[in-house]
């Protein structure tokens, strides 16, 4: 039954968008974390989406074939800002601390985009649900 697959597909997409929102929230929360070296400093996390097509195509009983999943959480490799703050407990021998490389504006925009995509999938589910209910009522004609 293909109509019921819509719930699995849109559900997987909602799940992926929520993970993306979570990553944004985590990045925002850690935007002012400081560390003693660039390697330890916080790097922004970016989810990488992948279609659930190739690996599940053969197994057509899987309800979310054609949906989406998080392939990996990649790290943003843009350089971390360093700050001269010799009084800071985490400062290195040169008196430098390393800020996170999170850009708040980017995170805000990404969160808005994720919320919009989530809403789109909610609408998809709603429409499919209404049509299924109407199909059930067909015998009342």
């Amino acid at each position, binding site marked *: *039954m*293909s*109509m019921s*697959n*819509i719930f699995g*597909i*849109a559900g*997987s*997409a909602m799940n*992926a*968008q929520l993970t*993306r929102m979570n990553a944004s929230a985590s990045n925002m929360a850690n935007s002012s974390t400081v560390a003693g070296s660039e390697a330890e400093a916080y790097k922004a996390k970016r989810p*990488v*989406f*992948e*279609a659930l097509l190739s690996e599940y195509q053969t197994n057509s009983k899987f309800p979310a074939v*054609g*949906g*989406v999943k998080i392939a990996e959480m990649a790290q943003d490799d843009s350089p971390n800002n360093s700050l001269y703050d010799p009084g800071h407990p985490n400062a290195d021998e040169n008196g430098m601390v390393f800020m996170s490389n999170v850009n708040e504006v980017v995170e805000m925009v990404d969160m808005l*985009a994720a919320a919009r*995509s989530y809403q*789109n*999938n909610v*609408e*998809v589910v709603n*429409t*499919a649900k209404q*049509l299924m209910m*109407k*199909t059930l009522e*067909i*015998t009342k*004609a």
Partner: protein
Amino acid sequence: MKLLDSAFAFSETALALRGQRMEVLSRNIANSDTPNFKAQDVDFKSVLNDAQGVTSMRATQGGHINRSQTASDANLVYTIPFNSSVDGNTVELSVEQAKYGRAAAQYQATLRFIEGDISGIRKALRGD
């Protein structure tokens, strides 16, 4: 119940196809942010050709297996986007949303036809 089967067969197949198209479109919407995802759609004409036996094999003898009447992967085509995107994704969300809404309306129309069939048969049975 050969009579009832043939009375509903047409709309039933149409309804299954409409549902399948909605699934394909929901797949596109779900993957609107996936890099390198290529949007797909059901090619109505090829499904129609298959159903009419123009291009497909037909079960003419007892041992033959009847292929299903609804769309298979062979009936899916890749859509050509109006604008290409940097990440190789060809889903255009507003286009897909419009298609999904239209497909939902078509599904509902097919439902109405079946409802009409049912109430017609019911009227004939009741005899009023």
